[in-house]
């Protein structure tokens, strides 16, 4: 057994029990033993000084591409979970679009076993909606459920056939699990590679209209109503989708949704160049066609970003999920049209999310809720909380620390980020999994030897 751990003088924020105060936290045997001022500590207690830092439940990401099995050149369970720990996450949910896909019990067990052996954090699994992600027949969903999946998704692709989606929602309702749909009408996407608008017009790239997403969100809400099933809309990106979800929730339909840090903060003009200014009418430079900003759904307009921020504020959006999509260099070192969709997000998620506090004044507890209790409520998990006797999964961060994104320092195999060279404010200082320190920021610790006395 580890020694007890006391995290002292931090601003403890736990939205699951509406805690937000400067206090202490005692961890014994990997569980939260006490929240509150600690006068006396048990023998051999290690202390962590969290003064001027925020102490939060460990972040939970319900949308992570770990790429294993089959695409280990992009990411492995080892590198992906290490990147997650660095980003303040203690739990990630692995998306099943691997090769082979996670559509059987044995595939799920492979990921769980590998994660236990090689992973840094908790890995939960998501099973495929359809066998082989082929969109033809339902996977053995009950078997997958008993293997422990937290939901079903063919993410990367939508469930195209509306009747299949209806049956999936109906069947999974019986299992008490959500269908997580990547909403995209492929015929409307029409092989597009970025948002449809002025930027796609001037770059000569095929645009993806908002309706590509919104039409399927509308369909899925109707089907959730018909079946009583739970549909979770992955990576919402358009103002229209959010408005449909808002109304559906008001009407008591079981629909939830997530938004990514990039859809909360970035717009399509970043594709013009991440190194030049932001004047969308200025001439292009040779840095245009930035493949690191190619993502599905595409980065949209400022009006969509504003709608996402409003969706966080009014609780229409249930959680922030990364859609961490690591790719190897070769997948992005090509023309925009050839480049793979996806951004490596785990290590920048907190910094991007904190910009909603810095730039829009959204209270930090609301943002933490979207990274902790928000996702865990959705998947019916007892993680994401600092309640006593629960797992001591804890993230300690400095919301003001500014740092420059340098992909070469990423732990993730995916260095693909449009934030390269950008300054973010908000940095993880330490991450604990069941009371064990799994990550600490080297800079903070070299500058402040006091904190190095912390737990091991």
């Amino acid at each position, binding site marked *: 057994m580890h020694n007890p751990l006391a995290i002292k003088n931090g601003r403890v924020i736990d939205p699951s029990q509406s805690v937000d105060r400067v206090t202490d936290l005692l961890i014994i045997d990997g569980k939260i033993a006490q929240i509150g001022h600690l006068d006396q500590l048990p023998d051999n207690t290690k202390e962590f000084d969290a003064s001027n830092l925020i102490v939060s439940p460990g972040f939970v990401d319900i949308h992570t591409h770990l790429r294993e099995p089959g695409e280990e050149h992009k990411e492995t369970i080892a590198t992906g979970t290490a990147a997650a720990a660095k980003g303040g996450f203690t739990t990630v949910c692995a998306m099943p679009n691997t090769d082979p896909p996670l559509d059987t019990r044995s595939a799920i067990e492979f990921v769980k076993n590998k994660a236990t052996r090689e992973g840094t954090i908790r890995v939960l699994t998501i099973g495929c909606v359809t066998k082989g992600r082929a969109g033809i027949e339902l996977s053995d969903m009950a078997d997958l459920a008993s293997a422990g999946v937290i939901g079903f998704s063919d993410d990367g692709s939508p469930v195209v056939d509306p009747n299949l989606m209806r049956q999936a929602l109906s069947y999974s309702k019986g299992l008490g699990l959500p269908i997580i749909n990547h909403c995209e009408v492929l015929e409307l996407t029409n092989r597009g590679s970025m948002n449809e608008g002025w930027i796609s017009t001037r*770059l000569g790239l095929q645009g993806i209209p908002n309706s590509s997403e919104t039409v399927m969100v509308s369909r899925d809400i109707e089907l959730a109503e018909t079946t009583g099933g739970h549909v979770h809309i992955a990576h919402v990106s358009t103002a229209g989708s959010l408005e449909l979800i808002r109304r559906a929730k008001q009407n008591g339909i079981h629909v939830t949704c997530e938004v990514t840090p990039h859809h909360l903060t970035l717009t399509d003009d970043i594709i013009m160049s991440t190194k030049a200014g932001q004047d969308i009418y200025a001439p292009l430079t040779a*840095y245009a066609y930035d493949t690191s900003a190619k993502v599905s759904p595409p980065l949209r307009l400022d009006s969509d970003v504003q709608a996402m921020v409003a969706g966080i504020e009014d609780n229409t959006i249930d959680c922030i999920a990364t859609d961490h999509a690591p790719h190897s260099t070769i997948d992005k070192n*090509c*023309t925009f*049209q050839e480049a793979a969709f996806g951004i490596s997000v785990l290590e920048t998620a907190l910094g991007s999310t904190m910009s909603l506090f810095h730039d829009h004044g959204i209270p930090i507890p609301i943002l933490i809720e979207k990274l902790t209790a928000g996702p865990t409520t959705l998947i019916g998990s007892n993680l994401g909380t600092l309640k006593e006797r629960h797992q001591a999964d804890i993230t300690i961060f400095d919301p003001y620390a500014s740092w420059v994104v340098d992909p070469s320092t990423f732990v993730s195999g995916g260095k693909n980020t449009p934030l390269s060279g950008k300054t973010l404010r908000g940095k993880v200082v330490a991450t604990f999994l069941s009371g064990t320190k799994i990550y600490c920021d080297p800079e903070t610790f070299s500058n402040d030897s006091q904190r190095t006395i912390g737990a091991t």
Partner: protein
Amino acid sequence: MGHSLSTKHLLGLEYLEVKDIEKVLEVGFIFKEILNRPIKKVPTLRGKTIINLFYEPSTRTRVSFEQAGKILSADVINVTPETSSTTKGESLFNTALTIQAMKADTVVIRHPHAGAPYFLAQKLDCSVINAGDGMHAHPTQGLLDIHTIVKHLGSLEGKKVTIVGDILYSRVARTNLWALTKMGAKVVLCGPRTLIPPDFLNNARNTEGHPFASIEVEGDLNLAIRDADVVMALRIQRERQRSRHLPSLLEYSRMYGITSQRMRHASPDALVMHPGPINEGIEIDSDVAHGARSLIEYQVTAGVAIRMALLCSASAEQEPKDQGYI
């Protein structure tokens, strides 16, 4: 030569200033005279290597570049996908490194993907000329079109230029928009709404500073063409029917074909242009394409002269420049 552009590469026309465009036109006029000589050869680019890297089938543009380079005494090497190692799966990145290692002075690239020339410009030290990238740009075509109009009308200031057809997929149209508006022309786009960029159909252009704010979109060809000084027809691809942009080429031809009857609405001396290759009888009638007002063949000749001017500019000694500034 004192004729070089202030830019190292030619990737698009949006960043060219009017003085740059005028400089290219001026040098083009000088070079055009060489094309009329019995011995069409000058030593300007002797010892320079130009690589024509064509990832898309093209006859007129590739031959035009090749001829321009050869008249200037450059060593011109044509690389096409059929003969290159791209069929063996070599990436554009590795092709770029290979070209770099061969010490080419200028690379002319045509590629089906928008932005491919930008990709090369980032990776290569030599000059890059865009010979057409996806539906993005075709700057040498844009400059030869401007050259053709200026030669015949004296200037573009206040002139009405009507572009008819598949604006959505036409890199020629998209490039010309930048150059024509910079040169003071009044541009009208005409075509079925399915072939106009969606961004041109809503009020997005009513924003301050939008470079295309003055461009008009008109669905009725007779109105679009009224009093036009220049009518530019675009090639309509047969696949637009399969891709559901058009009911049929016949209907397109009825609605948007340039006929001598319709040309009556235009200014009496209106010029007729087409970037080629022509679908005669579909987007333009034979009598118009080969009529007195047609400059279609002139455009081809002007193309060689303009490309000579651009190759000279690209191969000229350059001050080292920040790659970010094209």
